[in-house]
């Protein structure tokens, strides 16, 4: 137990730096992909708009025809997709990390579904619109989180019971949403699909601002807890022994994650499996030495952006983004359930 040799210290410093550089590099690549993706979806569609024209339009120039397509149709869609995806990605990885189980994602355990039910209820029954819908969605999301927690409490909460109860609640809430949708017969199929599987059809740019504020506020708060969240991965007892205030951390994580998911859901509906997939994909890309919050947000944004583009233009018919991401997520869900029967799963 003497002083460690200096070369050991610098060796470990080197390992640590290499890991940080690796992480930064992957996040930079993800960010570049996202930027490229946004520009591409602004250029491509029913018609092709050259990059220079897109940039001129973004700069405020009036271009007949293309100006409308890019500014009114493609831009809101791209911006909202990115914001919604980042919210879902953050909300998902926060829950998955805190509960140490990839199945504990808000879209699996009924929190997104609850927020969606709340949003539909606000629109159909309460005739609300705008931010008020988001508020009802958040209240519903928090309510569902509280309900799951209460129902699975039996001298402490175990992950398995919480997840099963959440899946059950999700199914119930889904049918409530469907029932509420049937009371609004004037709605189109597209509109109904938004609240059932998620869609960014017909979104407006003014819907982006509340999303951006929510992302900065709640995402920022969540990011400020990244170290506590990482320490929670070692189990509650060890984390508490290392000075993590369990109750405070849990409350902050649950509130921020539910708010992120609910704000996104109020705009796009519960885009299937984005929250569920983003974290594990980020973990594959980054390795697990360090926080996955930022990478999961980037992956989520990419998933929604590209999923929506694929649903519009790459498939034989037009599908809302939730159907595309749903098809991507379902096999992974099956894989996890099968694997969890053999081993105890974690990220």
């Amino acid at each position: 137990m003497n002083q460690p040799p200096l070369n050991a210290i610098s060796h470990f410093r080197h390992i640590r730096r290499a890991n940080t550089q690796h992480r930064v590099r992957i996040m930079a690549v993800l960010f570049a992909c996202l930027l490229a993706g946004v520009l591409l979806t602004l250029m491509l569609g029913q018609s092709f708009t050259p990059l220079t024209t897109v940039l001129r339009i973004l700069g405020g120039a009036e271009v007949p025809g293309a100006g409308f397509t890019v500014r009114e149709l493609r831009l809101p869609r791209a911006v909202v997709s990115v914001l919604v995806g980042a919210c879902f990605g953050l909300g998902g990885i926060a829950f998955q990390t805190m509960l140490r189980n990839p199945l504990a994602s808000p879209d699996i355990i009924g929190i997104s579904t609850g927020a969606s039910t709340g949003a539909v209820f606000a629109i159909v029954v309460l005739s609300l619109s705008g931010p008020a819908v988001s508020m009802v969605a958040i209240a519903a999301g928090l309510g569902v989180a509280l309900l799951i927690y209460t129902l699975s409490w039996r001298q402490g909460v175990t992950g398995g019971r919480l997840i099963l109860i959440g899946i059950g609640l999700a199914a119930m809430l889904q049918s409530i949403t469907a029932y509420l949708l049937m009371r609004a017969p004037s709605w189109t199929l597209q509109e109904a699909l938004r609240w059932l599987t998620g869609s960014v059809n017909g979104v407006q740019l003014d819907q982006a601002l509340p999303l951006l504020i929510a992302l900065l506020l709640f995402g920022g708060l969540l990011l400020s807890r990244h170290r506590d969240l990482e320490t929670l991965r070692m189990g509650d007892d060890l984390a508490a022994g290392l000075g993590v205030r369990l109750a405070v951390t849990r409350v902050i994580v649950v509130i921020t994650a539910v708010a992120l998911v609910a704000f996104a859901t109020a705009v796009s509906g519960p885009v299937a499996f984005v929250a569920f997939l983003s974290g594990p994909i980020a973990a594959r890309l980054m390795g697990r030495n360090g926080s996955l919050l930022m990478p999961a947000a980037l992956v989520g944004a990419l998933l929604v952006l590209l999923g929506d583009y694929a649903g519009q233009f790459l498939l034989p018919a037009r599908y809302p983004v939730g159907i595309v991401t749903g098809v991507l997520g379902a096999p992974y869900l099956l894989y996890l359930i099968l694997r969890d029967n053999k081993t105890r799963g974690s990220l």
Partner: protein
Amino acid sequence: MSACSLLAQGLVAGYGERTILYDVNLSVPAGQTTAIVGANACGKSTLLRVLSRLLTPSQGSVLLEGNAIHQLPTRHLAQQLGFLPQSPIAPEGISVLELVSRGRHPHQGLFKRWSSADEVAVADALAATHLSELAERHMDELSGGQRQRVWIAMALAQQTKVLLLDEPTTFLDINHQIDVLDLLTDLNRQRGTTIVMVLHELNLAARYADQLVAMANGKVYAAGPPGEILTEQMVREVFGLESRVIEDPVTGKPMMIPIGRHGGIHTANAPCSQHKKAPCFG
């Protein structure tokens, strides 16, 4: 007489309606090694959880150097008292270096970056546990003994004055058990760390501890130097086992030899050792 580090007074604690600890009083001398022994489910882990503030007692208090631990700020407590639970979970895909670095959590603030003190503490902990070469390995690639050393390294990196360990040697081969206990003894002798550990193996507890605490039915049955505590009567009353206690020829500490129902049959087995050709059993 050394000063008291941890002092538990009149602890009553349990889970929900169920009381597990009844009026536990315990004083842990500073700079010494205390080993807690007792039959399964007598409340050893529960006591350790109360001492480390993971469980709040319904009555009584725990003082750390005179301050009630339930009133200390969490981070402050974690800088002074480390706890290693019985079977800690290693997050999937985490490297040894990363895991040991988590031990620095209580020393880092919201905005405080990784410091050179953190660097030294981690390198130090890895060197002390002979893990420097394995720093980049993943936890899932290590043997049970190595993994246990990583957990201890994490606790070392925390650099606390007091370290509580719940059965740090369970599931290890005997050579690794000795390894871990020697390591903890080094820590105690060279840094003066106060160590409190639950041990399964009575003879190892008597050998490595300065103070032996025998628990039975949620109470402290007896506490003191192993020579006074490890007696045939204690083993009978705490473990319900007939035994012989002799002097360990290696250390001079007491050593317990269980008798059991077949303890007296050495005469019946005697031909065995002479019958070198024929196996004893089938």
